[in-house]
């Protein structure tokens, strides 16, 4: 009798266990399933975080939404799978998620050995420094002899070591296990410099007792190109993610926004016509409808809109565009043309 408890509870829950068959054609499956399964961070302010009502928002989440918009014309057709840093690659390899938009650095080993394809770089990150204003430090080269607060066992710690050694400067490491501990130590004056990825620095600064007494130095000492990634073996699927992202970047470059995309449909500019599906069959080349990019821009917005909404200077995260500006504005964001 009591043994039945287990079985009954088990049976009730086993009904929900979903079985997804995986084959070569991810797009066909996604269409058949009716939603895209997107692996995101568990919670990273500005990149992927749910609010108290349970709605996901963020820069990476917009990546998931743009893919759903391109395929279905509906940003709600996404299933978000929050993954831990360790779990994320298994989730992608095993087919639990269709792709990852999860603050993942594009490295050679991940691109080759782990069997993934990074489809683009939606955020150029890199390690930076924060110091107190009253130190009168203008750039990282003036930090000789400083005590640096950092997290143990991360690439951050190694990057700091590389940076100071290559510049022949002395420094002292004050390392902690958790980022919040590192920040608390910096705030209480146990070290002169706080270092982590720049996407985190600005958000961390808002947590300090007096955020205005600290500045983020302009130097970037490491390359952390973050982008969405897919499994090896289905290039068409990778193309869809890649072009959903490029559509947003191209839209910014062509001045198309969520607000004016309907007027832009009548634009005589051939580039805009091709992007919005008025000319050519570019959607069909991806296996999608011809208004795929129109949907992305209409429902998610262009790259700048997504950036400013989630991590831009008007948000608590407060990140300048910096290297993430368009190539025409001196940044690195550059999308190949739709042709």
């Amino acid at each position, binding site marked *: 009798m*009591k043994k039945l408890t287990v079985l009954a509870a088990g049976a009730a829950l086993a009904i929900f266990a979903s079985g997804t068959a995986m084959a070569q054609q991810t797009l066909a499956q996604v269409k058949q399933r009716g939603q895209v399964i997107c692996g995101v961070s568990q919670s990273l302010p500005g990149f992927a975080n749910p609010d108290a009502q349970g709605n996901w928002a963020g820069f990476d989440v917009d990546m998931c939404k743009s893919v759903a918009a391109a395929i*279905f014309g509906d940003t709600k057709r996404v299933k978000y799978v929050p993954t831990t840093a360790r*779990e994320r690659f298994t989730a992608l390899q095993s087919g639990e998620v269709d792709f990852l938009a999860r603050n993942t650095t594009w490295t050679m080993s991940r691109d080759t050995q782990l069997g993934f394809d990074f489809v683009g770089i939606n955020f150029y990150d890199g390690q930076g420094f924060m110091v107190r204003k009253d130190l009168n430090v203008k750039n990282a080269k003036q930090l000789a002899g400083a005590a640096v607060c950092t997290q143990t066992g991360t690439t951050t710690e190694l990057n700091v070591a590389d940076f100071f050694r290559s510049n022949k400067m002395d420094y002292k490491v004050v390392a902690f296990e958790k980022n919040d501990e590192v920040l608390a130590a910096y705030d209480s004056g146990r070290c002169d410099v706080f270092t982590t990825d720049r996407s985190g620095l600005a958000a961390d600064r808002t947590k300090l007792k007096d955020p205005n007494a600290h500045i983020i130095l302009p130097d970037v000492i490491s390359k952390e190109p973050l982008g969405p990634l897919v499994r090896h073996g289905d290039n068409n699927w990778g193309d869809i993610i890649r072009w959903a992202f490029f559509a947003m970047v191209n839209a910014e470059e062509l001045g198309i926004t969520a607000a004016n995309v309907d007027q832009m449909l009548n634009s005589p500019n051939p580039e805009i016509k091709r992007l919005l599906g008025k000319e050519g069959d570019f959607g069909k080349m991806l296996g999608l409808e011809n208004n795929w990019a129109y949907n992305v821009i209409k429902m998610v917005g262009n790259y700048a809109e997504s950036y400013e909404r989630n991590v831009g200077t008007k948000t608590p995260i407060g990140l300048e565009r910096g290297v993430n500006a368009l190539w025409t504005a001196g940044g690195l964001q550059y999308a190949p043309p739709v042709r």
Partner: protein
Amino acid sequence: MSTATASFQPKPSLPPPAATVGVVGWLRANLFSSWANAALTLLALYVLWKVIPPAIDWLITNAIWTGESTSDCKNPDETRKGGACWIYVQAWIPGYIYGLYPYDLRWRIDLAGVLSVLIMAPLFFKKMPYRATYGMIAIILVPIVAALLFNGWYDFAPSDPRASSHPWRTVETSKWGGMSLTLLIAWVGIGASLPIGIVLALGRRSKMPIVSALCVGFIELWRGVPLITVLFMSSVMLPLFLPEGVNFDKLMRALIGVTLFSAAYLAEVVRGGLQAIPRGQFEAASALGLNYPKSMALIVLPQALKIVIPGIVNSFIGLFKDTTLVAVIGMFDFLGAIQLGNADPKWLGYAVEGYVFAAILYFICCFSMSRYSLALERKLQTGHKR
């Protein structure tokens, strides 16, 4: 006549020395009985003085209780500098309870909570007929009802517009979360692990070599690995062994892991109780002509389980707190929901308030469990203390 029989009248006894009665006496006996104790008392008072007033200031007096956003916490009036920002916790309480559950369907979780209370309520009437049988059914019924309500039963294709509007549409387990998920996992874990644990304990003491070997093997295997490893294996390794694309619900994996893990510990607790029952009880049961199941169910187990109530409740409290480990497999239990709130860009920088709130709530839950177990022990006390 009367004066002749004057008898000895003792003087009334003196009151005890002032220093040994009343408050002073108690203080002398308990806090200042020697120089060393006096010094320790003063030191303890000093530490309390240093810790408690600032804690109360932070928690209550200087705390910000009303407001809309972080700006209310960042720029309070001068008198309230440095207090906790409880507005953040208030704003996130729905998130803490329901996790990522769809906003328009949260009444289903409320309904599950109300139904669970209603199902359990008759058990508080001591004179109810068939109380034990009803209790067992109720313990099984509650998680099933809750899981059905959490899950819903119309599984629409995502292309169907009803998939985002129908009141009884299904909600996949990855969206369950918060306190409701913690309670569900704890309930299933507690309800399922005790019977499995009892079976394992009896099996381990069995004279049949294969049964006993299997039980010993099972118990030692699960006791020998940390729960975090079990959960991690179930979430990271299991998908790699399964054929590509076959997906086994994550919550189910976590529930099975938590239940079997806890069952192994309970088995040893119950075995301790079985060993404490004198041999005479087993022999008496046989002498009455009872077969093995009956002698166990009617004679041995009631006594054995009564002895090990503290151990069982200890395991349950541990299990309740261990549910937080499901965070490592990407599920947001109560603590996970707190961490989600801490990452909300609208409320950055108030993580301490979130964690303090979590600590208070966990303490309330665990403390009530331990009080309940004490009450249960007292109720079942039948007088023959060893």
